[in-house]
């Protein structure tokens, strides 16, 4: 499939269209909302479903490429990308050191719903990916926070905040989304074929539908976030929020080639690197870097980068990954 075909198909997928409905409703100031508890249910479902299917895939096919190397690559990306992000931000924007470090943390880490979207697109295209990419995703959530706190240190007039606190790192490492992803991955890997058959109608067949609901909500939240956060959004920051995912995706592609991932696995690693956290990192930074303005990274990650990845990035990454795989094999 050519990139144009892929992009066209992506843009008329019901998930992407529901995202656009949500975005439009927010811009038009409709009162449509999704209750918080429902949003959390949808997120829980998606994490359990992705995790479980990843585990089941590993149970079925075994490890088709080097697991450890891929996890190491993910961790390295998460540690390193904030350095790049920080350098760019300090050069092209007027963000303070602390705010630049906060934004950098978001872009080093990953977004679970973007992961859900790429796996949804791959399923739809029937492109398989290594199941353990789920474990890679979980491993990429946290390292960026370490780098970012170190980047921020010289700019802080205090050492306040939970960053030096043991309990804090426990909380961050075991945040709800990591635990759900890895837990469901373990369940999928242990339970095998029989378990898979049992929960397939729920965790596999309903995935696309649940993703529609969640992306409708994401559209609403992203749209309202953009309206609220407009004032935080300079041209330079908007450019960053589009360029940084491309840099991340390129780095992800490079490592995927080195490791020899499949087309699907390459697309997933590119997307992970390209995505920016909007759940785990924001919460952690409120504790560890309280003087950073939380609205800036959130507006960028949710309002610009997420829509960019969903609408343009994912089909692009898949198409590139496809070519890489064809050249390699």
């Amino acid at each position: 499939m050519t990139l144009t075909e892929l992009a066209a198909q992506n843009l008329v997928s019901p998930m992407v269209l529901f995202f656009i409905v949500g975005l439009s409703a927010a811009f038009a100031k409709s009162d449509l909302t999704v209750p918080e508890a429902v949003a959390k249910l949808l997120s829980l479902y998606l994490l359990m479903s992705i995790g479980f299917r990843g585990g089941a895939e590993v149970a079925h096919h075994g490890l088709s490429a080097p697991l450890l190397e891929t996890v190491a690559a993910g961790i390295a990306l998460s540690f390193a990308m904030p350095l790049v992000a920080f350098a760019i931000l300090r050069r092209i924007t007027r963000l303070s050191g602390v705010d630049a470090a906060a934004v950098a943390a978001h872009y080093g880490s990953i977004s679970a719903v973007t992961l859900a979207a790429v796996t949804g697109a791959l399923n739809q295209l029937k492109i398989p990916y290594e199941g353990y990419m789920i474990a890679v995703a979980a491993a990429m959530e946290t390292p960026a926070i370490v780098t970012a706190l170190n980047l921020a240190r010289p700019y802080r007039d205090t050492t306040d905040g939970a960053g030096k606190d043991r309990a804090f790192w426990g909380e961050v490492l075991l945040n709800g989304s990591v635990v759900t992803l890895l837990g469901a991955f373990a369940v999928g890997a242990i339970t095998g074929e029989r378990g898979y058959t049992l929960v397939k109608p729920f965790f596999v067949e309903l995935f696309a539908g649940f993703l529609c609901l969640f992306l409708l909500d994401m559209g609403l939240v992203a749209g309202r976030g953009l309206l609220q956060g407009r004032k935080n959004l300079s041209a330079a920051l908007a450019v960053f929020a589009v360029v940084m995912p491309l840099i991340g995706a390129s780095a992800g592609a490079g490592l995927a080639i080195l490791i020899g991932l499949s087309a699907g696995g390459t697309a997933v690693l590119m997307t992970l690197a390209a995505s920016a956290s909007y759940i785990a990192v924001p919460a952690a930074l409120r504790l560890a870097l309280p003087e950073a303005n939380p609205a800036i990274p959130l507006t960028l990650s949710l309002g610009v980068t997420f829509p960019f990845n969903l609408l343009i990035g994912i089909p692009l990454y898949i198409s590139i990954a496809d070519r890489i795989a064809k050249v390699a094999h």
Partner: protein
Amino acid sequence: MQTHLKKRIELIIEMPLLRRVTERFNAAGVSGYSVLPVIAGRGQSGTWSADGQVSDAGQMAAVICIVDEAKLDAVLDVVFAVVSKQIGLVTVADVAVVRPERF
């Protein structure tokens, strides 16, 4: 009915901070506290709403704590040690209670 004067501390604090603040309430000797949800708000750091949110970051909770005047300063110290750099607010009001021994 005979009533006794106590203080009602009301915090509006960031959700990610909640666990830390309530854990320290113990040390300051409060007899208890209650957490109420906040679903939307506005402040210096902008307008927010809980609707559709998966993340607790950016959301607030209200904590109510009835304390004896004698413990008020100790509790406020603890609270400010945690919340000083954060988004949120602290108010104190007079209230009457009927069973004074429990605070």
